[in-house]
């Protein structure tokens, strides 16, 4: 039972405001782990800390047993930790082909190639094609991203994260803002992720959470409230109080 991702007493404060309190999260290899909590609980902050966008005040982060607390963002990606953004961070003027191509090139170590033109390496093209096909983006591969429907953009967001062949994938609200009609594709894409990839999912959509996760952590005010199997968490009175106390959620 190896741990794919672990935090040890992670702390983050902005000025006087503690947004992450003594967080010790353990995510097993191959797990489908969900992180839920009311708005403002600090879920995206946790992802930012895990990926290195934010530096913790204290505590450690371990990826597959080795410490990455001080590692810069791009190095973590190359180590196998990838993420998606809650609000699409895509390139409006680049095509899916280019965006995925970029991720694949970097991952395969050809990102700093300045002499060869793009598209001249067969094995890179292979991976790009495979990735685009899996996320049903082949027919849109030469369109500018800004012209794609939002659901397809969200798929692209996930595709780019997967293109880096991560071992741990952090999904920040993948279904957020996606219209009903396109949700299915997102859910299917998330469900079809390979089993050897560990996934940490942040979501508000409880249907998605309960159908996907085999373990759920509940974050409130930056601290872990409850953690366990989905049905345990669903029955927990504290969780109910947090959610019902906030009013209707998801």
């Amino acid at each position, binding site marked *: 039972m190896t741990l794919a991702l672990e935090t040890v007493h992670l702390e983050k404060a902005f000025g006087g405001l503690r947004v992450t309190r003594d967080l010790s999260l353990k995510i097993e290899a191959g797990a489908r782990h969900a992180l839920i909590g009311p708005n403002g609980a600090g879920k995206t902050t946790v992802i930012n800390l895990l990926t290195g966008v934010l530096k913790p005040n204290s505590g450690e982060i371990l990826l597959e047993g080795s410490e990455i607390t001080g590692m810069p963002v791009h190095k973590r990606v190359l180590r196998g930790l990838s993420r998606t953004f809650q609000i699409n961070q895509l*390139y409006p003027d680049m095509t899916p082909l280019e965006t995925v*191509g970029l991720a694949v090139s*970097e991952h395969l170590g050809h990102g*700093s190639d300045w*002499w060869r*033109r*793009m598209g001249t390496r067969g094995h890179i*093209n292979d991976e790009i094609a495979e990735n685009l096909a899996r996320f049903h983006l082949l027919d849109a*591969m030469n369109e500018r991203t800004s012209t794609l429907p939002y659901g397809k953009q969200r798929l692209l967001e996930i595709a780019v994260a997967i293109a880096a062949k991560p071992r741990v994938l952090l999904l920040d609200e993948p279904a957020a803002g996606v219209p009903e009609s396109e949700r299915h594709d997102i859910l299917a894409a998330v469900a079809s992720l390979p089993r050897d990839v560990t996934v940490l999912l942040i979501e508000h959509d409880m249907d998605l959470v309960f159908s996907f996760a085999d373990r759920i952590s509940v974050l409130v005010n930056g601290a872990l409230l409850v953690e366990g199997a989905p049905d345990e968490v669903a029955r927990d009175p504290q969780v109910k109080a947090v959610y019902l106390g906030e009013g209707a959620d998801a």
Partner: protein
Amino acid sequence: MSGEGTMQSEVGASAMARARWRWPEVMFWLLAAAAILIFPNRYLLLTEIAWLGLFALSLDLILGYAGIVSLGHAAFFGFGGYAAGLLALHGVVKEPVLALIVAGLAAMVLGFATSFLVMRGSDLTRLMVTLGIALLLRELANKFSNITGGSDGLQGIEMQPILGLFAFDMFGKVGFIYCLVVLFVLFLLARRLVNSPFGLSLRAIRNNPLRASAIGIPVNRRLIAIYTVSAFYAGVAGALSTQTTALASLDGFAFERSADLMLVLIIGGTGYLYGGLIGAVIFKLLQEFFSAITPQFWQFWIGAVLIVIVLIGRERLHRWVMFVPRLVAGQFARAGTSAVVSKGETL
């Protein structure tokens, strides 16, 4: 879409399509070469356009492709210029092409050394730091006048024949061909660079640095790399100006030079490599035109042009005034040198 083979080749074909040479590009260079024959008594002006274009190209590499704002790119221009001048004056490297390369490398080292300064802080800090570096160099050049000739500049430079074969003539014909060839070679290099995975990653960094690092791109390393390359190009441009005029002066470092360079790029447009070249042509023509009206105060009109362009908005102005050139440039963009294809792209 059936079978892995077709998919893979489609991906490859699409990716490579951008980098193909289209006829407008070919036309541009043929025209440039033809200028040798068409304008036999304007070689001096043409030479200035050539190295100014190269200088603008160097700025486009960092501004248009990587989004680095610099008010002091003249630092590398002046440095390369003095390096080439000193090499020739003291007979250290007699052959011009070799001296050119050495001068470019010198500027490149300077670029690398200062690149770390430029990585930190906001756009505003970058403006300040780059400006400060250029002014600093000017001060140094001024103070160490025993080496640099101070405000009189480096004089008495005598240029040896290029490659030992082609002597600089007094009409400037050899000088122009020399500049044009250098420009073309470096342009080809830049074109390769821009269409490579490296070039794509630069665009990604410029558009969204957060996303770029989340893809695994080592942002700072790439920026330092392109900044260094850009310094090389700027240094070569400075060296060319020294070699073709046999004079190096403090003007090379002047703020006005960095400012004029910005104007050149704005006129021509950033992000598709030809902007600097086209902008250089137009700027020089404007300069000629204004100098004919008010010989001493043409900078006044340049300032007015700058103000008008900014007020109207670069995008809108481009659409109105440059309709035909834009059509041509659009062909260039499709031909695969473009980083920016949309309108409404702000820097």
